[in-house]
């Protein structure tokens, strides 16, 4: 599926050559470890109502970790609607949710095309599942809402290019960001939700230093040597319910408590993010 609408840049090599200072080189072996305590999420900046034309919108920015070349996550989400459905579509007693997640072409090391690739569609489906649980769909019969999240900058480490396996873990961070920002935008658009939903990521990582792997929340893949497993969770704090769970990795089934611990941490992370969300929403009014 190629994009014929526009003139695309050359596929692949679109990364500006990074002049690598020796410092970062030799640490590349053991890349600069995690600077935060394992139970802390990165600082995030959330603001609603950034796009006047949309009926609801929000912007989320996650602090870049201290080291050079590592970019933080920057997301903007716009919500259009509720609007009447196209005439072709059948009657629906609920609001029809359609979610689009799109990486800006320059958001990642590997240039993204303008057309949505499978991974972006995949993210969209995850996001849809997460939000469906949160909104009260029957408040808006026969109407639809479009939720468009554009990832302006995915948090990726330019230095660590070899470990392309990280990209898959980046997806999780991106998803959690998408969920949080979309929830804020939904609230801004005035679409009924049972609760604010935020995303959180917890990962089981093993670093060179410590022998046994540890569980951290909101991991930056480039800060860890190996990520054994990770889960991204969308959580409704006041109802204590999970609307979306995405686990990936490799865990022995023999001890499920490891898995449950991971999920708990994920919920923690989500709850932390939710506090920011609530605060931000509180400020917007009055």
């Amino acid at each position, binding site marked *: 599926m190629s994009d014929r609408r526009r003139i695309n840049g050359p596929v692949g090599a679109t990364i500006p050559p990074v002049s690598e200072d020796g410092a970062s080189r030799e640490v590349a072996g053991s890349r600069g470890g995690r600077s935060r305590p394992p139970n802390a999420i990165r600082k995030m900046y959330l603001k609603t109502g950034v796009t006047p034309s949309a009926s609801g919108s929000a912007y989320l920015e996650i602090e870049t970790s201290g080291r050079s070349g590592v970019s933080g996550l920057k997301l903007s989400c716009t919500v259009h609607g509720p609007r009447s459905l196209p005439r072709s579509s059948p009657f629906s007693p609920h609001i029809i949710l359609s979610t689009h997640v799109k990486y800006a072409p320059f958001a990642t090391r590997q240039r993204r095309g303008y057309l949505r690739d499978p991974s972006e569609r995949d993210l969209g489906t995850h996001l849809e599942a997460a939000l469906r649980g949160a909104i009260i769909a029957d408040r808006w019969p026969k109407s639809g809402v479009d939720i468009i999240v554009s990832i302006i900058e995915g948090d990726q480490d330019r230095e660590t290019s070899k470990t392309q396996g990280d990209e898959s873990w980046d997806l999780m961070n991106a998803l959690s960001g998408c969920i949080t920002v979309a929830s804020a935008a939904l609230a801004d658009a005035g679409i009924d939700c049972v609760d604010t939903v935020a995303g959180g990521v917890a990962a089981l990582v093993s670093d060179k230093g410590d022998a046994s792997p540890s569980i951290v929340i909101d991991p930056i893949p480039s800060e860890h040597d190996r990520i054994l497993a990770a889960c991204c969770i969308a959580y409704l704090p006041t109802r204590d319910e999970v609307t979306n769970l995405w686990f990936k990795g490799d865990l022995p*089934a023999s001890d499920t408590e490891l898995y449950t611990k991971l999920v708990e941490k994920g919920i923690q992370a989500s709850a932390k993010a939710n506090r920011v969300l609530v605060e931000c929403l509180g400020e917007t009014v009055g």
Partner: protein
Amino acid sequence: MASTQHVLLSPAELAYLHAALSLTPPIRPDGRAPAQFRPLVAETGILPGTNGSARICFADGTEAIVGVKAEVERTRLVDGATAGTEWKEGGSARGEGEDDDGGDKAGDSDWVELTVEIPGYRDDDAGTAFLAAMLSEALLADGAFAKRLWINRRFHWKLYLDVLLISPPLSYPLPLLSLTTHLALLATRLPRLKSEGDEDPFFDDDWAAARHLFPRSSSSTTKESARPPVTLLVMAVGNNIIFDPAKEELAVADVALAVSVAEDTTAAATTAATMDLDDAAAPAARSLRLLSIRTIDPPSRLTPPGVPNAANSAYGATTAQKQPEARTAEAEAVEGVWRAPRGGAKPLVMAALVQKVLEKGGVADEILDALDAVDLG
């Protein structure tokens, strides 16, 4: 999209289904036990033109065919030595695919390309992408699989999995597709390598000499898990846990999960890192590994709600003059009247679902045993 295709059930039917399924024990429309799968017919090696193929027919008539084709491909040189500057060219076709590369025989997620074809759905449909992502995610979750495709430092096998759903998607096809893929991979053979070292590979023409991608003998000394993963669809209604739900059952699900598990016949873990997590499981016993979990958005959220008599004007509910933005009357759920579920699921329920899959002698065990029975032609 495949999971939230419209179910043509009236609120009354939904309410009845939900009630029946939340009984203890639940009463399923087709009379299955909660943990019972639909009976299926399976055969492998149906397509001599492929490296491996399988066909599974569920009793309800849904049918899938998976063909595996392998091609030799030159490995792109992304080496630890030049990590700083090298980046991978033209990964444009990538999308679904994960792995964590460990060990010298690094596997690459791009070595596996999995496509799903569902009749009547565009192949770039979100649901199709979701299915494909889920299947390959489970496949690649542990780097072990991609490593099997390693030929030498310059070449590797590129594996194409084409997953075809033959029948129209009656129920959510995930379990079917996953099982078929599993069998196809089990039946997959690669020609035996005759060349040594890093020279251009050439292979033994004798198909009989071809080695299986997943060696048969369970006493293999390979450290990787000796079987491809399976993805199970499990849902919860009330406090009942139901496996392999049919379309109607999925329509009243409170929550639905897709859980991917693989086994390794040896107690040795995949990687040195997980070694010590893996509390000593008996070497003989099959020890499962949890690879991935995804929440499936149940179509129940899109079902039409029933109207309780209290709110039904036919029963004389006075529809008072409402000022705008007074939304549909918010009422407590009335017994026996269907309401589309709101919110998510309690973490405990989720945990219970996963537990049910993973526990020793649980459903995953049964399925894998059942699949063992299938003879690989």
